[in-house]
């Protein structure tokens, strides 16, 4: 259950989850609840797939993916920050918009039932052999882990894992991070310190869009070769669950996503197999487990997940 192949697939599954989870972290740490991670990933996957196909350039595809996700994030920001609308409703709207628009435009532009055509050479991020991967392959355990588990992924996987310490650093070692964390806890404290709550939250939402953009692009131009309908397939929600499970902390977020990725890898590997002492475990159990764990955590039965204090609440200065 912990063989290299399973772990390898865990890494691949986790990478987009980590990106989306960190995306949500920026937004929610600033006090803007985002259940639209799914939609932003989907939009980005489509943008990336389409542009990578047309330009045969994976990097341009990535840029396009990021652009789409940022636009969707700005819509969410406009609704929830500027208009002080309901953030949950806005997130639901973003998910619907992305689901419909990607399929509709995909069909209009490529006429392949909402998918984009397979990517040409150069349109996809290939796997990267790390130095000495082949040489170390025969060293037991350590070499194996290096050459088979750590080496051989595409660049976005490495970006995803690099984003974890980077996000931690931004959050806890920069001015922006300090203010971001403050505005999610007590926007009035930020306001009285002479900082614009609105602009700060917009920047958080944009950061969320950028990371969702990378996450979505990963799906269509790194993991697969091209976009297919509804390809986010609930990953945005899993990422949201992971974010709660991680108690809104970057390091925890990575572990939560790896755990959920492992469950996914197991679900696939153990299909129809007997687990000694337990018997056959239905694949759906593994699918549901991330959500079940999150609910149990939320209910305070294992630790307590306390969201940023001001999350979900529009900031209103004037008294009513």
């Amino acid at each position, binding site marked *: 259950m912990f063989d290299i192949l399973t772990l390898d697939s865990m890494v691949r599954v986790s990478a987009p989850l980590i990106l989306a989870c960190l995306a949500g972290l920026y937004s929610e740490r600033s006090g803007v609840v985002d259940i639209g991670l799914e939609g932003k990933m989907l939009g980005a996957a489509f943008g990336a797939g389409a542009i990578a196909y047309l330009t045969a350039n994976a990097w341009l595809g990535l840029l396009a993916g990021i652009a789409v996700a940022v636009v969707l994030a700005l819509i969410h920001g406009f609704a929830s920050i500027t208009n002080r609308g309901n953030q949950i409703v806005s997130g639901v709207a973003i998910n619907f918009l992305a689901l419909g628009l990607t399929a509709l435009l995909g069909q209009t532009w490529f006429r392949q039932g909402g998918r984009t055509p397979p990517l040409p050479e150069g349109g996809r991020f290939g796997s990267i052999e790390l130095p000495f991967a082949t040489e170390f392959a025969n060293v037991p355990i350590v070499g194996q882990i290096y050459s088979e588990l750590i080496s051989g992924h595409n660049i976005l996987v490495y970006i995803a894992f690099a984003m974890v310490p980077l996000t931690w650093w931004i959050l806890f*070692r920069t*001015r922006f*991070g*300090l203010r971001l964390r*403050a505005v999610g806890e*007590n926007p009035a404290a*930020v*306001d009285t*310190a002479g900082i614009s709550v609105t602009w700060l939250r917009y920047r958080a939402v944009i950061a969320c869009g950028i990371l969702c953009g990378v996450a979505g692009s990963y799906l269509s131009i790194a993991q697969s070769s091209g976009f297919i309908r509804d390809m986010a397939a609930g990953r945005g929600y899993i990422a949201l669950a992971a974010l709660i499970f991680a108690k809104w902390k970057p390091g925890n977020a990575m572990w939560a996503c790896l755990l959920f990725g492992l469950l996914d890898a197991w679900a696939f590997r153990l299909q129809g197999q007997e687990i000694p002492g337990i018997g056959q475990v239905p694949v759906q159990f593994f699918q549901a487990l991330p959500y079940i764990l999150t609910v149990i955590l939320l209910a305070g039965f294992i630790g307590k997940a306390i969201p940023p204090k001001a999350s979900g609440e529009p900031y209103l200065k004037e008294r009513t």
Partner: protein
Amino acid sequence: MTGTPAIELRKINKRFGPVHANKDIDLVVGKGSIHGIIGENGAGKSTLMSILYGFYQADNGDILVDGKKVSIPDSKTAIALGIGMVHQHFMLVDTFTVLENVILGAEGAALLGGGVSKARKELSRLENDYGLKVDPDALIQDLPVGLQQRVEILKALYRGADILILDEPTGVLTPAEADHLFRILEVLRDQGKTVLLITHKLREIMAITDTVSVMRRGEMVATRKTSETSMPELAELMVGRSVLLQVEKKPAKPGKTVMKVDGLDVIDSRGVKVVKDVSFEVRAGEIVGIAGVSGNGQSELLETLAGIRKASKGTLWIDGDQSNLGETRIDPAEMRDKGLGHVPEDRHRMGLITKFAEYENSILGYHKDPKYAKGPFLDIPAIKANANAEIEKYDIRPPNCQLKTANFSGGNQQKVVLAREIERDPTVLLVGQPTRGVDIGAIEFIHKRLVELRDAGKGVLLVSVELDEIRSLADRVLVMFDGKIVGERGAQADEGELGLLMAGVEGDAR
């Protein structure tokens, strides 16, 4: 007072919708002094200070800082002008360390590293200069409120504030912490800072300020040198020589005890004990008034007796029926069954649902009464008939029970609540701030009703911060200070004496 004043305000006005929170305010604050601004809750003190700190904008009027006319569109500008503010509700991030809170908004550079070490040095300098000691790495949520407040002061000083505004700084402090704060403020003044102290506590004004200005109902009514005034004079200025009509009433004929409270303790959500070992009784046919400056535990006392808050200890008897409030919270519905009526202090927050129609509000808390039900259904014709009868009897205007109560004036809203609670014929009626935000005509009406209720042999417990109201209605007056009942006086209590009790200056219990 010599030299340019630190702050000068000229004809400041601010309205919130129909509420005129500040009317033509003039104020001169001398440099290097402690200037107190005193007034009742809702007198407009906090609004005025928020304008000075750029949190709100005045509708018109001028602000001069160091003799120069300035406009303060936001807090950033205020900070740049050397104005710092310690808010009544601390503007701190609970999950942050002291250091993080201090540098928030004044980090210096995009990376925290340099700013943090600079702040650390600066904090230890401030600690030496002013005696403001706090562990810079402690989390705010782990600090007692006194230290949290110190962090607020440090925040302002770290930003180079020369003028420090403190809004009701002692509201959350123990007396010892308050004394410590005053010593700090004196040090600050002696080092050349200007301090503006907003409070409603006379004792503080007398203890610490050099000059005092009094606000009442949005207006600045007087400014005095502290050494040349007295507590009774300030109390009179604060409350105002009232235009209240004296209520005509016969002497009370108290009967048997209808409500008895023994050894009541209440701890609020912050873990602060707000009601301390309170015991008293109310007899049939008398109005017992609880006087006190707001925030001394009266609100919590009232809510606990009504079943809204849980007590940590204490026994309650209503008409001889005993309940142990320390064990379980008696639900408000059960309290009503025991014969308790409750006119809550804040009708908007609790007493009414302003978006409901008048007739729907007329059964709030009594919606399970079989009179208004047909099985699981509401008997709307019966409810409306009852509502219309109350509208008639209490002269509620406009006389339309279909109208949302949001569209009623404050006085009529209060009559809706009063009618609802009195017409259920309670054994004891709890009444909080019955005339807050109510026009003169309605005040007279409400007072009459309360006296009638008394004369009908009911017990009334009246909580009010309006001393005149207490004096004209109550047959016995209990004064609350710092969660305790510090004295009891008869119907004709002397105003000055009550004022001193309310200020915590003297008390029978001490």
